[in-house]
């Protein structure tokens, strides 16, 4: 008897599975609903009406990751600024870099989102997949490289010239090293910086190189050791990596990995730390110097207003100091060396005017030589073939969205930086 019931249940279950699986066929009708609605927003009224608007934000991790927290805080700030309700701003956290991303994007489009934004590099292919299907929804992706290649009207990349912010944070680090040298805490030769990187990827390499160049611009004897965790977010690994670098004699630590592991390790060992994405002063009141960060508020505002007003979103957007996208958190005066703020301000003014170039080829060498040409993989066909020269007029032209692309392509180790 039991067996028979079990078999019947099994068969029913299979039918149920099959039956339910077929039901979603009328899907295309659903997807058209938001499409019709978009036509209504093409109005040309003076006051901007956001009532009909909805945005979806896809995050790889939740707020515990400093990287994702940076996006979540930005979209919440924009929401408050524009007076949007919680139901108009959907934030989905913990979305893997797999089919889960496509599903999340499609569900957001179904729910009437006019823009869907994803924050992690590995989300890109799935965002493109969704963009191909939902022609009337805009898909925006941070750190991506393919918008210029795929040629879709509704798929966009965005990043910022964060290497400039990194350079300024590097100046704060270099000044701190100078202070330590002057006070006799370390010798000039011991001015070694430790860097915890996530992946040996251009975004990370570009970040630490610009940071290092900033530090060396004020502390000429500075060197740097880099170690990779092979993960964007791993508290234990990042903490251990920072501890190992400190044990190796690094006088200052910085990181491009998304947890609080490294700042906490620095606070415990009383070693100065320069962070990324969030202000880490609360984590390390006596060691946190400053953080550079990409402020995503201007971009979120831009895409929301573009969709509401019916204007175009740039295919590849690179935020700058001018747009307010590249920012530094408040300098921790109790840790920083005297005159740091002034030095940062002066350098920032020169970067904005163009007088100073972060990757000025006269300030660094590669394998002992000054480079006059470097061919990088700018056009991302998925083939990993390097095809475009990005050095001109005496500098490496990083994150040039007009000519090349917003996502970084500086991907080599300059002299003075070693990999551990």
């Amino acid at each position, binding site marked *: 008897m039991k*067996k028979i019931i*079990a*078999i019947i*249940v*099994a*068969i029913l*279950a*299979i039918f149920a*599975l*099959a039956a*339910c*699986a*077929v*039901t*979603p*066929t*009328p*899907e295309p009708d*659903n997807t058209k609903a938001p499409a019709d609605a978009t036509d209504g927003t093409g109005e040309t009224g003076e006051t901007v009406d956001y009532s009909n608007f909805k945005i979806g934000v896809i995050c790889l991790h*939740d*707020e515990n990751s400093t990287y994702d927290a940076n996006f979540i805080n930005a979209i919440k700030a924009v929401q408050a600024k524009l007076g949007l309700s*919680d139901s108009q701003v*959907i*934030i*989905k*956290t*913990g979305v*893997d*870099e*797999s*089919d889960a991303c496509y*599903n999340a994007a*499609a*569900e957001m489009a*179904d*729910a009437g989102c006019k823009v869907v934004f994803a924050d992690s*590099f*590995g989300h*890109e*292919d*799935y965002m*493109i*997949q969704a963009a191909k299907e939902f022609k009337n929804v805009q898909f925006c992706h941070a750190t991506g490289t393919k918008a210029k290649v795929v040629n879709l009207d509704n798929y966009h990349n965005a990043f910022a010239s964060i290497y400039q912010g990194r350079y300024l944070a590097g100046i704060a680090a270099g000044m701190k090293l100078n202070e330590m040298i002057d006070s006799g805490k370390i010798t000039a030769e011991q001015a070694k910086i430790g860097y915890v990187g996530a*992946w*040996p*990827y*251009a*975004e990370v*390499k570009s970040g630490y190189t610009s940071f290092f160049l900033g530090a060396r611009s004020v502390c000429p004897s500075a060197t740097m050791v880099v170690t990779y965790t*092979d*993960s964007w977010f791993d508290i234990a690994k990042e903490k251990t990596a920072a501890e190992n670098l400190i044990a190796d004699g690094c006088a200052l630590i910085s990181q491009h990995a998304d947890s609080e592991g490294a700042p906490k390790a620095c606070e415990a060992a009383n070693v100065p730390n320069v962070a990324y994405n969030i202000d880490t002063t609360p984590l390390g009141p006596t060691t946190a110097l400053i953080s550079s960060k990409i402020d995503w508020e201007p971009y979120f505002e831009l895409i929301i207003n573009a969709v509401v007003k019916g204007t175009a979103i740039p295919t590849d957007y690179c935020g700058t100091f001018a747009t307010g996208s590249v920012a530094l958190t408040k300098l921790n005066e109790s840790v920083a060396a005297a005159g740091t703020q002034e030095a940062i301000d002066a350098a920032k003014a020169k970067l904005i005017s163009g007088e100073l170039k972060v990757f000025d080829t006269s300030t660094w060498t590669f394998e002992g030589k000054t480079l006059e040409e470097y061919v990088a*993989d700018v056009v991302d066909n*998925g083939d*990993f073939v390097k095809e475009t020269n990005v050095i001109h007029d005496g500098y490496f032209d990083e994150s040039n969205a007009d000519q090349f692309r917003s996502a970084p392509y500086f*991907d080599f180790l300059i002299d003075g930086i070693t990999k551990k």
Partner: protein
Amino acid sequence: MEHTIKSKKEPLIHITKRDAMPLWKAILIRVIAVVIALAVSALLVMVLTKKNPGQVFTAMFNGSFQTPRKILNMLQDVAMLLCISLAVTPAFKMKFWNIGAEGQVLMGALASATLMYKLGNTGIPNGVLIPLMFIGSILMGMIWAIIPAIFKAVWNTNETLFTLMMNYVAMQIIQICIATWATSGSGVMGVINSMNEAGWLPQIFGTKYLLNIIFVALLTVFVFIYLKFSKHGYEIAVVGESENTARYIGINVKKVILRTMALSGALCGFAGFLLVSGASHTITKELAGGMGFTAIMVSWLAKFNPAIMVGTSFLLVFLDKGASSIAMECRLSESIGEIITGIIIFFIIGCEFFIRYKINFRSSNKEVAK
């Protein structure tokens, strides 16, 4: 009531094993457990977040049922979890603690991804490539399962530790492959063959995942019959109950262990094939997403019965989707959904105790105490 211990001073509470319980009563206990679990969760939500519990539970339900797409995505997740649960079941029934399903699935997935990546641009037709990937995945999963099985059968090593460690080895192998193929160093493989869709399982009736769901439904029937009605299934049950008995009645225990683990691994490899070819079209070390471990719970909760596993895997997927939906709709941290999931699973597992055992309180009344 023969189990009742007679003593001069009876303890305040003592526990006795129940003989058998009518099905309706067992179901009733489970329903009560879920209701209490929901009530406790609702209370917790009210206290912690000041949100209306009705809103929270609606969000939970919406996670799986709000739109046809969500139902389909839910069914795909159920199918994948069920597939891996079916894979671990024969081994668990044999009391071979295979906690290496995650790694076996990943190795299966890696085999498929490798073939897709290497052969995708050679112009090989899908009619050849997909069967190749299918065979490759099954073989890889099988190899990954049979290594610890050989060690167990020949040297009696601890299979729990061995299979667990094999998971990490599998993840590292995937990392190495990605680092070799994606030379930009990003650690992201991206969608493979997005241009020509080589090695992608076709969509039938224009519906994503439908083929995955049908395959797993068929697999459920197969495993059900295999365990219940085949000689192999009987041998697995006997080895699981007592190896000595099995030996006594002439079952070759080593052979059964090896054969069963090979089957477990093959089915895990099949799950990996479905994940790559029928869903994500990529490879990452998170591709199995911990399902190799969740599957153990699915299998246990269903007492190794494949038909009931349909229900338990649905329950776990429903809770998981509900949790992230709560986090999304109510702007709460992901943790609150996970706490609710934990409470519900705790009550469900806890109620099994009351189904199997009876609690007797001391009573002065001789008749009741018996």
